[in-house]
């Protein structure tokens, strides 16, 4: 796993101290604003708001920009596609592909939009621990009628925490088994099919065994998903309401302009 694995940056800024629910609501609200915005002036305002929040959080901008990298290819492709295929005034007349001003505008707008979506989300994950976000999501899902799915919001939160534990041990097992098989003379380039089997079978066997163990451990500790308590109890502070108020005012102002 790359070292960006956990996108959290330790800190004690205003953003770090807010309740995860406040921040989740803020990201959702800002994403909607980003989606609705069709003008560059509005985008500029949203970008400055993002920069302001980054300044408050104390997270380095370059760290946040890394979150855009995985989707860069898609964004670039969409930009090029809009640039060349939108009809309008040509920038330079070329025989086959003509870049147009309208295309440039639309392409830049879409790229900015996707970039901002990722950046606002990165701000959330940089200032909030995954376990806190899990807690926040659990609390937000609690009023939903999940009974129809046959689970409770606590079950979902438990599953998320279990997965967060399983993921690194799975990757670690994969690395160990791969090294063990290489030491026994496995050559992946020689026979890919056999190589994959030699790694996958013990890996899955181990994972299934550990899942069985976890099940028994939970069973013998009487796991129940009805009502659970948490290490970090969530409490909305005055600060959270103030932040939501500021956000609401910003959104209203933004929509009105």
């Amino acid at each position, binding site marked *: 796993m790359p070292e960006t694995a956990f996108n*959290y940056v330790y800190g004690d800024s205003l953003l770090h101290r807010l309740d995860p629910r406040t921040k989740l609501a803020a990201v959702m609200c800002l994403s909607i604003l980003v989606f609705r915005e069709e003008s560059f002036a509005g985008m500029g305002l949203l970008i400055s708001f993002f920069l302001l929040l980054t300044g408050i959080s104390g997270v380095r901008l370059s760290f946040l920009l890394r*979150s855009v990298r995985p989707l860069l290819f898609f964004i670039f492709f*969409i930009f090029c596609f809009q640039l060349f295929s939108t009809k309008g005034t040509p920038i330079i007349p070329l025989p086959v592909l003509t870049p147009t001003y309208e295309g440039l505008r639309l392409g830049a707008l879409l790229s900015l939009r996707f970039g901002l979506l990722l950046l606002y989300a*990165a701000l959330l994950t940089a200032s909030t621990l995954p376990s806190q976000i899990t807690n926040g*999501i659990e609390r937000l899902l609690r009023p939903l009628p999940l009974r129809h799915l046959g689970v409770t919001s606590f079950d979902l939160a438990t599953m998320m925490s279990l*997965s967060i534990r399983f993921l690194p041990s799975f990757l670690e097992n994969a690395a160990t088994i791969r090294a063990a098989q290489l030491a026994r003379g496995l050559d992946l380039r020689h026979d890919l099919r056999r190589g994959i089997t030699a790694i996958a079978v013990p890996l899955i066997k181990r994972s299934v065994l550990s899942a069985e163990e976890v099940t028994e451990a939970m*069973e013998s500790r009487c796991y129940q998903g009805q009502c659970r308590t948490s290490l970090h109890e969530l409490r909305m502070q005055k600060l959270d309401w103030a932040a939501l108020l500021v956000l609401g005012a910003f959104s209203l102002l933004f929509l009105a302009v």
Partner: protein
Amino acid sequence: MEGKNKTGNIAPSSELRKMVFASLFAAMTAAGAYIRIPLPISPVPVTMQILFVFLAGSMLKRKWGTLCMLVYTLLGIAGLPVFAGGASGPGVILGPTGGYIIGFILAAFVIGYLSEKIGKNDYLSNALYIGIGLVIVYALGVNQLVLVGKLDLLQAITLGVLPFIPGDLLKLAVAAHIASRYRI
């Protein structure tokens, strides 16, 4: 994998067991984003995520398969880099490639639903359910590429479906094989 001789006489309730396995599959789906196998037949590196989507649907069935993919999505929203290429955050779901992730949830549901409803568990029926699931993933993925990315249909298919078909068919074959031989 059931029916192993257990030393103790503790029989974990099957619901709890499935819940733990669903979490394991969600973690494997996340890990699948990092396992890249270069294949000579396809220009795009093959990642293993969708294999676990197929397996979740066909082995965990409707309820837990869907929940497994839901948990995977929530992990991504919580900021763990579990989406393809190590992306994370709610922005990915709303972005141009988010349709695939929504497709994962729906595909797991449909695969699980079909295999529960029809009840057959041989190789070909499993391959059929999974095939339908794959079409759903493609359909939703292309749909979002068109709507959000403002691409036209042909471009979206060229970018978002064609390069993945060879690898995905291979994974379909593997998943159908595993699902018809083992059960949780």
